[in-house]
């Protein structure tokens, strides 16, 4: 089941980022999730979103701050330097919200799942690698010159 959810998560990330954010993405299947600097040491914004149902847990999404500003600017029709930190965080949360909802819609029984409300992961400013590197089945995604990380954690 987790493998199916992971496959659906990859599909949802691709669909949402391409349709809503005009970002073409590529899942890096052979990337080592425990690498020391999974986002090339870039500061990032991370969000988490709880779900419950036949399986319960949470999704997470880590995006470099610079990329978050770019996609927020695209999303809102602003210049990069007009985007505030709060707007960039809000965009990452909303992206994860759409990804989570779309991912569950790809499961066989979407009505059996409930989504929570996305929240920012506060400790990421300090060490994004520590967050993703300790987790199994992290998905590495390439988007232009940036890399993102997403994953599912079951509780």
């Amino acid at each position: 089941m987790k493998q199916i959810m992971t496959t659906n998560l990859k599909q949802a990330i691709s669909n949402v980022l391409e349709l809503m954010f005009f970002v073409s993405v590529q899942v890096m299947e052979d990337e080592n999730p425990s690498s020391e600097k999974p986002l090339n040491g870039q500061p990032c914004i991370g969000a988490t979103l709880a779900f419950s149902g036949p399986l319960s847990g949470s999704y997470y999404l880590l995006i470099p701050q610079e990329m978050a500003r770019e996609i927020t600017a695209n999303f809102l029709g602003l210049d990069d330097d007009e985007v505030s930190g709060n707007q960039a965080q809000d965009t990452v949360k909303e992206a994860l919200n759409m990804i989570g909802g779309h991912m569950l819609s790809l499961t066989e029984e979407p009505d059996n799942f409930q989504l929570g409300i996305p929240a920012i992961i506060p400790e990421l400013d300090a060490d994004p690698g520590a967050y993703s590197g300790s987790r199994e089945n992290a998905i590495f995604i390439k988007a232009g010159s940036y890399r993102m990380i997403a994953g599912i954690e079951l509780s």
Partner: protein
Amino acid sequence: MAFNVLIVDDSSTMRAVIKKTIKVSGFNVGQFLEAGDGEQALDVLKDEWVDLVLSDINMPNMNGLELIGRMHADEIMRTIPVVMVTTEAGDDKVKQSKALGAVGYIKKPFQPQDIKNTLCRIMGEEIVDETDHDDEFETGDF
């Protein structure tokens, strides 16, 4: 005819995107109003003339389903059409929102033409289909 549209979503970014998407779609809007949850939406509805409400379902404080229920209990507010804009994966909450009085739904992610078509159908405006559709994402009235 220009319509006053109230957008209810706890994400300020999503409110801005919905506003921008409606503008791009060409749907005729007089004034955009915004609220961050159901409670704020009720305050706006008490004070402002609103022709149409677009509301998220999953919000803190008062969610979209509670908002429709509260609107339905009010003689004037119950006449205002409500369209749900949601990330909900299944149909249960969409059906609940219909039972409570919502007249349509748009699932995120969406495209401008999807919003325009839904709003035009609900408000009785002529629909001009200008873009290709991606049928993978769901929108519509009930």
